[in-house]
C-alpha cells in the first residue's frame, strides 16, 4: 500500500468539507462527520493542511533526537530555511546552529542543483532524447501526480533523482571517502519544506529513500529559535560554497538561468501544474525541452512548513544569491555515483484489459454518468464527496453512500 505522510486527527476534525474542496486530486471524503484520506489518490502536496481551519491535518515527520543514533550526522537542508529569519543577511548563523545541533557536515539542496544542471544539459543536448518536454523530478508531489493520473506522460519524466537526493548522495559519499569512516555509522538527514518530501517519491516501484530521517522545516525553525532565545552562542564564521543560479533554482525553482539555450519552463502552483499536464497529455504542447514543476506557489519557498510569506522568502533568497558567483570550479562537487546520473527508471507496465473487464468498465461508466445526470451539479460537497461526479462514482464504486445521502436532492424532492 502507498504510504502517505498525512494524518487526520479525528478529535479535531468537525467534518466541514473545506479540505475536500482544497484537494487537487479529490483524495478526501467526509463520512460520518470525519474526513478520510483515499490513499491511492493522495499526492502529499499538503493543500489540505493549509486549508483546514481546525488544524486537524498533520504530517508525519521524524523527531530531531534520532540523529543521536548515529556517530556521524550529515545534513541536507532546503535553502528555503535560510530565508525564514528576519536577519537573513546573517544566514551563516543558521549554518552554525546546525553544527551546534550536532551535525558534522552539511550541504544545501543547491549543491544537488549545481551537480544536476550539467548532467541535464548534456542529456537535453542529445537529440536522440526526444520525449520532450522532459519533466524534472524535484517536486515529489508532481511526480506522484504523474504516476497516479497521467500514465501517458511517464516517459516524459526525466529519469533522474531529485536535486535533494543528489545533494544527499554527494554529501554521504564524499564524507565517507574523505574521513574513511564506516558507512553504517553515518546518518543522513534532510530538512524538508513540505510533507511531499517526507516520504520516498517512487516507493511503489521499490525505490528506497536515501535519507535516514527527514525533519519538518517548521520543527527545525522552532528548535533554532529556542536555542537562540535560551543559549548564549558564540557564532563562528561558516563557509557556504554555491552559485547564484543553484541557490535560486533550489529554493524558488528559477530554472531558466542555466538552461537558456533550451526552451525551459518553470510552472508553480498545483492547479497550474495540472492544467499544463492536461494540455501536454492532450498533445497540444509543442517545442518545449524541459519543464520544472512545483506543487507550491513560487516553488519550495511556498512549502507548507515554511513560516515566511513565499514572496518575501523569494526576495531574501535572491539577495543572498546575489552575494555568490555565477560559476565555481567544475571540480568542486565531484559525484560519480549512479544517483547523480540520469539512470533511474520510472516504470509503468500497461496491461491490456480483457474483453469482459472492458465491457464491465463501460457499463460502470454508463451507470455513473446516469446517476450524475440526476444530481444537482452544485459540487457543494455536502454529501461528503468532493464533487457531484465523485459522489456518483462513490455510489457505484465505493458503495459507501447512496443517492439519498445528497441533502440537496432531499430538500428539493416534492
Amino acid at each position, binding site marked *: 500500500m502507498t504510504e502517505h505522510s498525512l494524518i487526520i486527527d479525528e478529535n479535531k476534525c468537525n467534518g466541514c468539507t473545506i479540505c475536500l474542496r482544497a484537494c487537487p486530486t479529490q483524495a478526501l471524503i467526509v463520512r460520518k462527520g470525519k474526513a478520510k484520506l483515499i490513499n491511492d489518490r493522495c499526492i502529499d502536496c499538503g493543500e489540505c493542511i493549509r486549508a483546514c481551519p481546525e488544524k486537524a491535518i498533520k504530517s508525519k515527520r521524524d523527531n530531531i533526537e534520532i540523529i543521536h543514533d548515529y556517530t556521524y550526522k550529515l545534513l541536507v537542508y532546503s535553502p528555503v530555511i535560510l530565508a525564514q529569519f528576519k536577519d537573513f543577511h546573517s544566514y551563516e548563523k543558521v549554518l552554525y546552529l546546525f553544527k551546534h545541533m550536532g551535525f558534522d557536515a552539511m550541504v544545501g539542496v543547491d549543491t544537488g542543483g549545481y551537480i544536476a544542471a550539467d548532467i541535464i544539459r548534456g542529456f537535453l543536448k542529445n537529440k536522440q532524447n526526444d520525449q520532450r518536454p522532459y519533466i524534472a523530478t524535484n517536486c515529489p508531489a508532481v511526480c506522484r501526480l504523474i504516476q497516479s493520473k497521467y*500514465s*501517458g506522460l511517464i516517459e516524459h519524466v526525466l529519469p533522474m533523482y531529485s536535486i535533494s537526493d543528489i545533494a544527499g548522495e554527494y554529501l554521504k559519499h564524499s564524507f565517507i571517502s574523505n574521513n574513511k569512516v564506516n558507512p553504517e555509522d553515518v546518518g543522513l538527514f534532510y530538512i524538508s519544506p513540505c510533507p511531499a518530501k517526507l516520504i520516498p517519491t517512487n516507493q511503489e516501484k521499490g525505490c528506497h529513500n536515501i535519507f535516514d530521517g527527514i525533519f519538518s522545516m517548521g520543527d527545525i525553525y522552532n528548535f533554532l529559535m529556542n536555542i537562540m532565545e535560551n543559549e548564549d552562542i558564540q557564532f563562528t564564521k561558516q563557509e557556504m560554497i554555491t552559485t547564484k543560479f543553484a541557490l535560486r533554482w533550489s529554493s524558488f525553482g528559477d530554472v531558466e538561468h542555466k538552461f537558456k539555450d533550451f526552451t525551459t519552463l518553470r510552472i508553480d502552483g498545483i492547479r497550474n501544474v495540472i492544467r499544463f499536464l492536461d494540455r501536454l497529455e492532450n498533445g497540444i504542447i509543442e517545442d518545449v525541452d524541459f519543464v520544472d514543476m512545483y506543487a507550491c506557489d513560487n516553488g519550495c519557498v511556498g512549502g507548507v512548513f515554511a513560516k515566511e510569506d513565499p514572496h518575501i522568502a523569494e526576495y531574501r533568497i535572491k539577495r543572498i544569491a546575489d552575494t555568490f558567483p555565477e560559476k565555481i570550479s567544475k571540480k568542486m562537487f565531484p559525484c560519480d555515483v549512479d544517483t547523480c546520473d540520469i539512470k533511474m527508471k520510472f516504470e509503468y507496465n500497461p496491461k491490456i484489459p480483457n474483453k469482459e473487464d*472492458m465491457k464491465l468498465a463501460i457499463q460502470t*461508466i454508463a451507470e455513473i454518468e446516469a446517476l450524475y445526470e440526476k444530481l444537482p451539479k452544485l459540487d457543494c460537497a455536502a454529501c461528503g464527496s468532493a464533487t457531484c461526479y465523485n459522489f456518483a462514482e462513490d455510489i457505484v464504486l465505493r458503495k459507501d453512500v447512496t443517492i439519498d445521502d445528497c441533502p440537496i436532492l432531499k430538500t428539493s424532492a416534492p
Partner: protein
Amino acid sequence: MKEEDCLLKFEIQGGEFLDSGESSVVIKDYLKKIGIPHPFIRRVLIATYEAEMNVVAHAERGTLCFMIAEKTVVIRVQDKGPGIPDVDLAMQKGYSTATQEVRQMGFGAGMGLPNMKQNSDTLIINTEVGTGTEVIMEFTL
C-alpha cells in the same frame, strides 16, 4: 454500425479553430478510465484530432461518433461539406488545399490524412463532391 451504438457523440462546427479538438480529449479520458494502455490511446488521440480538424478546416459542420465493438475502437466522422475530389491525391503526404492564411496558423501541412492512416488500423473514406465526407477509422486493441 448503428447510431445508438455511439458511446460518445460530438457536434463539430466548421471554421471554429479556437474551441476545436475537444472530442479527442474527451475520448482520451474515456479510454483512460476503462484502463486502455497509453500507446494505444495516443494513436486514437492523434487520428481523432486530425479527423476533427479536417471538418473544422475544410467542411461546414459535422458529427463525430466514438464506439467500442469487441476489441476495436471505431471513430466515425461525417460532415456536410465540399467532399474530396481525388482521395488518393489528398492522402499524399504534404498535399493540402489550405489557404496561405490557414498555413500561417500552423495548419495545412498536408499531414492530417497521412497521420490518420498511420495511426489507425483501417481507414475508410466515403466522399461525394458537393455533399460531404464520411471517415471511418478502426483501431484494434
